[in-house]
């Protein structure tokens, strides 16, 4: 259970509308990008359909998420900081730096554990590579065509426009045709580490849930292993078992794509909010707007942040928002003093 209760009907209505619009836009983009389905590969239809469901689910969940009081205010402040011309003029490198360190290299994970950082980087870059290849392929945006029919000379086209020509037998050709194998080789060790941790680390085991914590890892392993087995089948088994493996791989990918908006993978969509939050706080610090505890005068955070939090608390009818002007230690000490003076005098 998460705090907040049921989602109001007005929000679900808005979320459904957002989901329908985004998924329809994707369908239009698929039709146009594949030159009215001329380049669309019908064998990849289940993947394309799954991405349309994914678009609906992500837009739906995102709308519900940013409608909650805490996220709504942060959403506004984050995007406000992002599109502030004044911010950009004062610190043009702040945003790219935050995106690179926070979203790309995930420095914060290194502060949690070096091993987890390394494993997550493998999964992250593997998934990025796989997404960059498969999404446009299933939408009919990428095509590989050969003038001779069977190569070795190929042309890579995006939306029908030629990007590069390459020989499938040279190194670039090998890279182009084995991009997904490389992605799988990156993902498997990273995911295996996390699976091992989920079974052995008592901190990770505490409160873990099969559907939320283990299913995503198993899904990544199944996708990667069946993907590699497809290559193995075509190279070493002359296509033996290829059809079964292709279906198994497809089922795993389709399931994972549909699962993204509703499970652990939603953090992929949520995580950029952290950059918005950082930028919002960074802007306050640039302006020297630091809010200090009313009792001990130690800094709590930036003044706009404290105001934003108090607004969120008022939105939620938490009638003690004034308390946010005291640091956590002073809150505890003041409560202890009140107990000492008003409840149990013998405590002294």
């Amino acid at each position, binding site marked *: 259970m998460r705090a907040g209760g049921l989602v109001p009907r007005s929000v679900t209505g808005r979320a459904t509308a957002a989901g329908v619009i985004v998924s329809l836009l994707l369908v239009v983009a698929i039709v146009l990008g594949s030159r009215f389905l001329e380049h669309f590969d019908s064998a990849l239809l289940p993947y394309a359909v799954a991405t349309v469901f994914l678009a609906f689910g992500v837009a739906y969940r995102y709308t519900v998420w940013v409608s909650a009081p805490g996220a709504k205010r942060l959403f506004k402040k984050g995007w406000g900081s992002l599109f502030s011309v004044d911010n950009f003029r004062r610190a043009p490198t702040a945003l790219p730096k935050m995106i690179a360190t926070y979203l790309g290299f995930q420095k914060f994970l290194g502060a949690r554990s070096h091993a987890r950082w390394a494993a997550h980087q493998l999964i992250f870059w593997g998934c990025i590579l796989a997404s960059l290849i498969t999404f446009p392929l299933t939408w009919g945006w990428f095509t590989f065509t050969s003038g001779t029919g069977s190569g070795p000379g190929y042309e890579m086209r995006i939306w029908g426009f030629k990007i590069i020509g390459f020989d499938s037998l040279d190194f670039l050709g090998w890279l182009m045709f084995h991009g997904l194998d490389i992605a799988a080789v990156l993902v498997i060790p990273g995911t295996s580490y996390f699976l091992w941790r989920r079974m052995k680390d008592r901190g990770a085991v505490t409160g873990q849930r099969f559907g939320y914590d283990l299913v995503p890892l198993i899904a990544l392993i199944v996708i990667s292993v069946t993907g590699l087995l497809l290559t193995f089948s075509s190279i070493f088994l002359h296509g033996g078992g290829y059809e079964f493996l292709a279906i198994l791989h497809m089922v795993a990918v389709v399931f994972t794509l549909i699962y993204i908006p509703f499970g652990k993978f939603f953090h992929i969509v949520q995580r950029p909010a952290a950059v918005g*939050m950082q930028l919002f706080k960074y802007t306050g610090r640039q302006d020297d707007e630091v809010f200090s505890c009313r009792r001990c005068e130690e800094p709590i955070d930036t003044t706009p942040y404290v105001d934003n939090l108090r607004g969120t608390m008022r939105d939620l009818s938490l009638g003690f928002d004034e308390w946010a002007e005291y640091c956590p230690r002073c809150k505890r000490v003041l409560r202890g003093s009140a107990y000492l003076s008003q409840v149990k005098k013998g405590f002294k």
Partner: protein
Amino acid sequence: MMGRTIFIDPGRCIGCQACVSACRECDSHRGKSMIHLDYTDEGQSVASLPTVCMHCEDPVAPCAEVCPADAILVTADGVVQQADTTRCIGCANCVNACPFGVPKIDLQAKLQMKCNLCYDRTAYGLAPMCATVCPTGALFYGTAEELQAERPGVQVADSFVFGESEVRTGVAMVVPADRVQWPVPGGLPVVEINGKDVRR
């Protein structure tokens, strides 16, 4: 109030820090203590106050409500869990909204951490680390009946007042018998800061 929970009796606390050390041994946050031990009038009094997460029930977990990333889960047994590591964005909303000043934040790791009632132990019927080692019983784990059987005449309160607002919690405090019907003062409104009367 939860069935089996922690009962805090500041009157028994001797400030020995055994709970602080034991908390570091908890598997879900190894090496980092989540319990707070504050000396309310340092230099003048030996009074000390241990603070664990109070697992707020009404309003349910303000820390989770203000979380913009839906990172804080409240399990069916009423335990407010630590932030989900994949979701927490390290904004510190929970740290500054908690009326009891409980959550901690690691700004480098962009991660909130808090007392989760030693879920790795309590989920299996074991007492939390802090209550296990407390030499004076300032932290007691069990049911209210078990507490009262051990300490006849003791009363407990699970409501706290912060200004106009009342917060009912899953963790309770030991109070004198005549205080049971009144919520325990949470410290707000603040009447005095550093010896100065701040009442308007």
